[in-house]
Structures are given as structure tokens and as C-alpha cells.
């Protein structure tokens, strides 16, 4: 039988039989990032294992390894105790591993049955698709999960919840032994979530092993048998769900020393500079209101999908709000485009640097001066000497490392690209700078530089808004923290209220 490795001593309460599928000492490295470091995970027949962790803890990477999308750099995948390899998604499917992804990939123009069986439809004569059998089998699977959907309908005619059921049916259309559910309830209403729980119970009764990824503690405690906690790509703890409390899980998720790596700063908030009232969008967020003062760093925390970036981009003029008003220095302003926002002194450093933040195929100096050209040119004619001067001034303030100012931004490291984007905005002499996940994909050294620089900007009287999903960053940098959940502000925290536990509780709604 399987060789007992050093790590997976079966957690307490897991004495019923061997694991169907196990990861043993898996490591996965991406350029510059160690996504998973020696992690282990075991899934047992008829049991639900909850995988818990912050954004970026490595949960999605694990799912991709289990479904053959990524190949691990080290460690072993064990199927019934035998070493297995999933070199491609088809291999994982053949071994009976199936996943319901966070963002399901379905095809609007195909029928429900075609979506369910795409890639493995039942074949008839001459290897052609046996449409009748396919529709019949699709109906069987849909009935099995209690979904009243006609398999002949086109997918685009279905609502979002029914699409999700089709995705579940697709996952069950292969003879699965392991079902992975990656935040399956994120898009569902209360009633649909109840139905999903029943489905999970019936899958358990059929002896399937289930990996359940969720941020919602109530559902974890309701349906999970076991838990596994990841943090920063490492296994922090696992065991039977009955042995832990919510507080234990939160502590395992976030527990680390938060205070040391961030610059010490004494905040002296001054006059209010930005006041947002009743900001709303038809689908993404509603009733957002807050006041930002000069010299202040205001953190926005929330889970992925809480509507933070969507709100910031609306404030920056990318999308139009359905209601709400903005005041700068007490004067109401109308922002219909990013150009308007920049003119009013609001700038935005987006999360997606390559597509939104920088223009990778243009040189550094042209990126830096792009929004400031009107100011440094003479009647619309560019002045190259002035451009280089401005670019030099701000890139040097940010300690940019590059071969020359004529280097294309695409040739720089993530951290230096981020410095170019920040330099571009500082050159416009803004009043409010919004940084969206400012250190995502940035190496440790540049991270500290960006943090130090944020502190310096605030000390000089700039008002800073920082959207971050990294709890240490939020707590280490912010004077105040606003927590968003499902498009709404659910908490505003300051001083001693700012603890990892309170952030996670408010963000997850517990």
C-alpha cells in the first residue's frame, strides 16, 4: 500500500479508510513567486474537506494542479495511494477528478446538453455525436441535481443560477470520484445555496470525495467534515471541523507578525479633500460614502468580488455610477472620464498594470509624461528636454532601476513597472491617489520601497486610498480601514479595532 510520508499523518477524525486523492509535499513556483511550498492535502470518500485561506494563499493553484491545468514542480499526487500524474485536464477527468470553477467556462451559443457533454459526448455510428443519447443523459443528470432545465435550450437563455447548475451538471457528467467546488455559492441566492447544500449531501451519500473552497464560515461549518488551512502557499493546519472554532480558523488564516516590515508613521490627517456620498452602480456596489483627509491613508479591505476595484474605477470615471456625488475640497465635481478625474486631482493606479496601468511598448519617459503633456508642452508641441526632465525627476524620487529612460516599460520588472505608473501620476501633482493592490506581483524589495513611498506621500499631505487584499498591508499602512462586502461598506475601523480577526469577520460577514 501507500508509503507513509512524513507529512500526512491522517488528521484526527479521518480514520475511515484511505484517501481517494492526496497531494504529498507539492511545490509550485512561478517566476518570482513560490505559489505552493510543500503542501499536502487528503480527500476521503463521502467526506467534504473545506480548503480555507486568504486571497493568494494558494487555493486556486491547488485546484489547477488537481485538475491537470498546472504541473507541480515537486511532490506527488496519489490516487488510491498510487502515484498519479495529470499532465492535462483530460487526464484528471479520466481519473475521475472534476471541478466546478469559480468562473465557469460555458458556451452561450450551445445547448445545455452540448455544454454538459462538450468534449466527451456519447458517440454513435461513424463516431458522430449521438444527440438523442446525449440529451437523455443530460436530462438524467439535471434531474439528479434537481434542476428543472430543458437540455435543448440554448445556454444564453438561462439565468445566472441555472447556468451555474449546468456547470455543476457538466462536472458530474464524467463519472467523478472527486468533486472540487471553488466558491460555488458566490453567485447564488439564499434559496439556491440551500439546494446546493442538498446536492452536496447527496454527493456525499454516493461516496464522492468533495473539496469545498469557500470564504464563508457559516457554510464551511454547515457542510464540511474536515478542514485544511493554507497561508502564503503553505499548509498551516488540518483536521476535523468539529475540533475547531471559527476563531481558530481565522487565526490560522491570518496569524503572522504584522507590524514589523511597515514604515513607522505618525498620521496627521488635515482638511477633508475628498467626500463621496451615496455612490451606487446598478450591479457592482451601492451606497458608498466616506470622507478622505489630506495626509491620510485610507485602506479598503474585502474579499475578491466585494466591489472595491469596481467602485474605485467608477470614482476614476471609467464606469458611470447610477447615483452619488463627489466633492473635492468641498466643491462638487462631475467626473465622466479618467481625463476629468485627472483634471480634478484624482488619479488611479490600477491592479492590472500591463493592460491598464502602463503602455508597455512605449518608453519609460513617454509613459511618465503622458498625462502631463498639456502642462509641459508649448501650445500643444512637445518639448523633449522638458519631458526627460520631468520623467527623470519623478522616476528618481521613486528610485526606479532601468537601463535608460528610453527603455520600454514592458522590459522592466513588475516592481519597476509599478514605480513608472506611480511616477506618471505623481507628475500630475494630484490631490488624491488611489492605489489598487499596489504591491500585487511585486518583489519583496520593491514592495518595501512602494510602502515607504506611500508613507512619504501621506506625510507630504497627499490623500491616499489603498485597496488591498493583503491583511498585513492593510493593517500596516492604513490610518483607517473601510471593509466592503457584496458591494456595500460593512465596517469602518480605526485604531484598536483594526485587527486581522475583525477584518476577516466583517469581510466574510460573520
Amino acid at each position, binding site marked *: 500500500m501507500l508509503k507513509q510520508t512524513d507529512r500526512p499523518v491522517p488528521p484526527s477524525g479521518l480514520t475511515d479508510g484511505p484517501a481517494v486523492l492526496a497531494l504529498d509535499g507539492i511545490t509550485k513556483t512561478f517566476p518570482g513567486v513560490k505559489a505552493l511550498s510543500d503542501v499536502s492535502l487528503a480527500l476521503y470518500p463521502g467526506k467534504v474537506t473545506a480548503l480555507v485561506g486568504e486571497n493568494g494563499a494558494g487555493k486556486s493553484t491547488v485546484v489547477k494542479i488537481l485538475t491537470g491545468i498546472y504541473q507541480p514542480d515537486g511532490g506527488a499526487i496519489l490516487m488510491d495511494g498510487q502515484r498519479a500524474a495529470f499532465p492535462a485536464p483530460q487526464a484528471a477527468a479520466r481519473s475521475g477528478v472534476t471541478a466546478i470553477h469559480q468562473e465557469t467556462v460555458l458556451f452561450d451559443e450551445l445547448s445545455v446538453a452540448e455544454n454538459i457533454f462538450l468534449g466527451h459526448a456519447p458517440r454513435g455510428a461513424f463516431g458522430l455525436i449521438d444527440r438523442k443519447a446525449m440529451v437523455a443523459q443530460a436530462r438524467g443528470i439535471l434531474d439528479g441535481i434537481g434542476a428543472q432545465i430543458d437540455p435543448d435550450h440554448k445556454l444564453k437563455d438561462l439565468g445566472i443560477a441555472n447556468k451555474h447548475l449546468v456547470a455543476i451538471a457538466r462536472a458530474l457528467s464524467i463519472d467523478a470520484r472527486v468533486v472540487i467546488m471553488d466558491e460555488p455559492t458566490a453567485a447564488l441566492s439564499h434559496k439556491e445555496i440551500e439546494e446546493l447544500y442538498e446536492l452536496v449531501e447527496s454527493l456525499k451519500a454516493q461516496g464522492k470525495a468533495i473539496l469545498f473552497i469557500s470564504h464563508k464560515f457559516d457554510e464551511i461549518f454547515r457542510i464540511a467534515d474536515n478542514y485544511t488551512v493554507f497561508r502564503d502557499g503553505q499548509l498551516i493546519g488540518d483536521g476535523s471541523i468539529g475540533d475547531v472554532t471559527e476563531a481558530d480558523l481565522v487565526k490560522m488564516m491570518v496569524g503572522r507578525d504584522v507590524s514589523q516590515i511597515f514604515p513607522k508613521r505618525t498620521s496627521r490627517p488635515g482638511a477633508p479633500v475628498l467626500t463621496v456620498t451615496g455612490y451606487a452602480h446598478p450591479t457592482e456596489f451601492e451606497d458608498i460614502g466616506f470622507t478622505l483627509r489630506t495626509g491620510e491613508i485610507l485602506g479598503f479591505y474585502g474579499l475578491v468580488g466585494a466591489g472595491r476595484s469596481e467602485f474605485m474605477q467608477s470614482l476614476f470615471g471609467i464606469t458611470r455610477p447610477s447615483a452619488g456625488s463627489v466633492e473635492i475640497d468641498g466643491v462638487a465635481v462631475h467626473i465622466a472620464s479618467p481625463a476629468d478625474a485627472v483634471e480634478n486631482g484624482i488619479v488611479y493606479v490600477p491592479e492590472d498594470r500591463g493592460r491598464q496601468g502602463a*503602455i508597455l511598448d512605449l518608453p519609460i519617459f513617454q509613459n511618465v509624461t503622458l498625462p502631463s503633456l498639456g502642462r509641459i508642452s508649448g501650445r500643444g508641441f512637445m518639448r523633449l528636454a522638458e519631458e526627460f526632465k520631468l520623467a527623470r525627476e519623478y522616476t528618481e524620487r521613486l528610485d526606479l532601476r532601468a537601463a535608460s529612460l528610453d527603455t520600454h516599460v514592458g522590459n522592466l520588472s513588475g516592481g519597476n513597472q509599478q514605480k513608472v505608473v506611480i511616477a506618471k501620476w505623481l507628475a500630475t501633482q494630484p490631490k488624491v491617489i488611489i492605489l489598487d493592490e499596489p504591491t500585487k506581483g511585486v518583489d519583496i524589495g520593491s514592495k518595501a520601497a512602494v510602502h515607504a513611498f506611500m508613507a512619504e506621500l501621506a506625510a507630504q499631505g497627499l490623500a491616499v486610498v489603498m485597496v488591498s487584499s493583503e491583511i498585513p498591508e492593510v493593517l500596516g499602512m492604513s490610518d483607517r480601514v473601510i471593509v466592503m462586502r457584496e458591494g456595500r461598506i460593512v465596517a469602518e475601523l480605526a485604531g484598536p479595532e483594526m485587527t486581522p480577526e475583525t477584518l476577516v469577520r466583517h469581510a466574510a460577514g460573520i
Partner: protein
Amino acid sequence: MSTTDRAIPDRLRSPLEQRLKSWETLLLAVAVAIFVANSFASPYFLNAWNLSDATFNFTEKAMIAFAMALLIISGEIDLSVASIIALASTAMGAAVQMGVGTPGLVLVGLGVGLLCGAFNGVLVTRFGLPSIVVTIGTMSLFRGISFIVLGDQAFRGYPASFSWFGQGYVWWVISFEFVLFGVIAVIYGILLHKTNFGRAVYAIGNNPTGAMFSGIRVQRIKFILFLLTGLMSGVAAICLTARLGSTRPSIATGWELEVVTMVVLGGVSILGGSGTIVGVVIAAFVMGLVTFGLGLLNVPGIVMSIVVGALLIGVIALPRLWTMWRTG
């Protein structure tokens, strides 16, 4: 690598060095080669009046090509330019029948060009439709109107003072059209390479999302580019109509592809984001010299278009084949 002076240099390669290794230099060599080959192939080539005539092969198309170059660099395209010529020329012909004089005709030509450009621009920038689809549609629409108005008839009777735009000479063999071509080239060269507007065009072509996130009014600039392309089509319509002295609905048929060919041959990336006006100027001369040289040798028109097509593919493929061969 460790220098005590941490200052980042402005540039590593001088602008002159970059220029010498550029597409434009290669293209200039091609132009010279064609010139030399032509002068050997035909005894009539090296004649001032013949060379002057040769410029009419490209001046009108090149006027549009400069505006088209900016449009393509910004990531859009306008395939309706030749149909705008037809519509503008038809409008001018109709105005002649109503007794409008030369200044009025010029205004009509420019006005129709601007209106057509505005129509394309609104459809692309306000309604977010892809420009290739919009302008294939307006290509049929504009010329269709011209066909409805004219049928198999033609407008004639342009005043003699109007003909000067297409047939007049400023000095010796230097035609008005050639001077206008030069002036427009300089204006577009300055607009693209020396102004904030030109920088924004490059930024949009490289990354429209990034440009918008940098506070550039992307849709407004694209709309202006469609206006300019329409306007230049109007200018070309004035010159061509004046040169031919008549308007038929089939005027300038197929020019949209010749204009795009000129732009791409000039080194403008069809995907947007790069290219120069100098390149388009040289490409205009290359295409003019090729068609003129072949004309002197009595090569039929259909063969000419084969040669121009082969030239386009050849000049664009050669550098890529060269790097593929060198890198194995």
C-alpha cells in the same frame, strides 16, 4: 554593473543610430533601386516633364494616406475613403450644375469629406462599432448615393479656374498637386511626431485601455482622426475631379486598398501603435515610381497591380525572412 552614479541615462542609442537601422532607411534604398532600374529600362524615364507626370500617380492617394496613417496607428481604419471621393466629387458636380463657382466647389468638396468622416467617426466612437465593419458599410453607402445621383451619366463643365487644382503648375515642372502633397506631408509629420496629439495617437494604438486609464480622451481623438481622413478624402476629391474634369460614380474605384497599401508599405503597423510619416512619403514615391516605370514599358494595368501586390508582400516579408534565417 555597479556604478556609483545611479542616474539613469536618457537614451542608450542616439536617435540618429535608431533612424539608420529603421524601416524607412530600407525603404529609401528600395526607392533608389527602383529609380535606377527605371532609368536603365526606359530612355524616357529621366525626363523632367515625364517625372513630373509620374507624381500624379501618387499625390492624391498620398494625401489620404497621411491621415490614414494616423488612423491606422491609432488602431482603426477607414475603407470608405475612395467612396468619399466619389460622393464629394458628385456633390461638386451637382453644385456646378447649379452654377456654383470655384470657391464654393472647394467648400462643397471639403464639407462633404468632413461630413462623411464625422459619420464614420460617430458610428465608431459613439456606438462602439468596429471601424472595419462601419467603413465597409459606408464604402458601399457613399458610392451608392453617387450611383443613384449619376447613374451612367457624368457631371462636366467645371470652371477653368477649378481645373488649376488638378492641372496647374506652380513653377516649371512643379505641379500644384505636388506642392500640396509636400505641404500636407509636413503638416502631418509635425502633427504626428511633434505634438501632444501625435503622442496620444501612438499611446492609443499601443494600448487603448492604458491610454484611457492615463487620462487621454481616446474617443475624442479617434473621432478627430476620422474627421481628418474624411477631410483629406475631400481634398483628394477636389484635386482628382479638377484633373479629370468630370465626375463619374466609378471615380477612384479601388483607391482605398491602394491607400492602405501605401500606409503599410511605409512601415505603419496594421495592428496599430507604430509608423512614421517619412515612411509613408517614401512609400508613396516607391509606388509612384513602380507604376510609372511599368507604364513607360507598356505593361498593362492588371500586371501593374500584380507587381504592386508582390512588392508589398516582398518588402514586408523580407525583414522577417531575414531574421528567421539568421535565428535558424
